[in-house]
């Protein structure tokens, strides 16, 4: 019904840590970063600069987690070896 009764509990907008992981920001992406691992020196600047913290380090070389990558291109801009390219997202 359209009539709005007051909520029983005092509503507060308080979020617990990690709550932003519910928002899969990969849906924002229209360019996708690809790392040419043959040229990658493992300097970790992409890991350091990624604003979404979605560059993982499973081994000595980085790997980009595509659940949260928005395709912003900061990693490609920062990479001194210029081994990250921003490619068109493939059609589903």
């Amino acid at each position, binding site marked *: 019904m359209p009539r709005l009764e007051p909520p029983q509990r005092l509503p*507060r*907008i*308080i979020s617990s840590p990690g709550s932003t992981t519910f928002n899969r920001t990969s849906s924002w992406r229209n360019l996708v970063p690809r790392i040419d691992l043959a040229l990658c020196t493992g300097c970790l600047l992409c890991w350091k600069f990624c604003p979404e913290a979605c560059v993982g380090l499973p081994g000595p070389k980085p790997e980009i987690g595509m659940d949260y990558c928005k395709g912003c291109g900061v990693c490609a801009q920062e990479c001194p070896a210029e081994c990250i390219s921003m490619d068109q997202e493939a059609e589903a």
Partner: protein
Amino acid sequence: MKKVLTGNYAAAEAAALAGVQVASIYPITPATQIGERLSEMSAEGSFGGRLIRVESEHSAMASLLGAASAGARTFTATSSQGLAYMHEMLHWVSGARLPVVMVDVNRALAAPWNLWSDQSDSLSQRDTGWLQFYCASSQEVLDTVLMAFKISEKTFLPSMVVLDGFTLSHTYEPVDVPDEKAVREFLPPWRPESRLDTGAPAAFGSLAGAKDYIRLRRRMAYDMEQALSVIDDVAKEFERLFGRRYEPLAPYRAWDADTVLVIAGAAAGAAEAAVDELRRDGHRAGSLRLRVFRPFPADALRRMLHGGMRLAVVDRSFSQGSEGTFSQEIKAALYSSSPKPVTTGFVAGLGGGDITVDLLKEIWAEAHNGTVNPAETVWMEDAR
């Protein structure tokens, strides 16, 4: 213990007695002495809270938003332009449901520059979600600040305790200052369940969509309504411990009166004196002091007044293009009553004009004799 205090010093004593943990104050006439006194008390060791020196009133309220979010009991004081400058943060604090207590010393708004008492500063903040209490003596300032902490902490709504610039803020009078032990019994330390805590990290104040936003406001409206009964409970407990009772509306010889002066603040005393003089001359005069303005005690007002009465509402503020704030609110509250009192709005005492017994008798007579059109606001001044 009785001390001779001004309204400002009574407010500072109350903040110290309440065990305020963080006070953040920017000086402005006529409220400056509150911060000065707290600073002195801090140096003497009689105020144990932290005093933050800030660069503006906006920052004063912003820092209290942070301190109260961390679970501190918080206090500030301001006036006029300072309160106007805080406006944005007032919404933030009430929306975040934080029990900040602030003293506002009524002073007119510029331009032109003016230092004296006028209620337009506090009344122009009426829609910010703050409780508002209008005091009529320095004793009431002290008592209301103490009660405001308890009321705010129970309702999760901030409180503004309002007193008249100079007429109360700078006038010395005897004030009964309760001892700290009794105050602590009345007002134990505040321990909020959710607060900023590095041991249990959480994010406060993130974005809310329409569905959450309206629910938050709906709950705030409900809590505002409920605040009237909280105010009543706290007043009863205060009376039990300290022997002084405060009601949201204070009628004076009003029950059998045919014309009633309605007024808020320190000039209410002059209204009572005017009523005494009018009664002595054989008139059925009464007065009604509006003490709690937010939440507006509309039910109590309707119960107290009846259709045969005439009301003379004395406003020390004016909403340009409309009428005095109290007049608007009282007319709105009485709209559903039938028959309703004939209510006339009078504007007096803007910019510090003295609201004297003689002036109030004139206002009473104008309303009583029906020489004014209730649809129009009547502007009055004491010519002296």
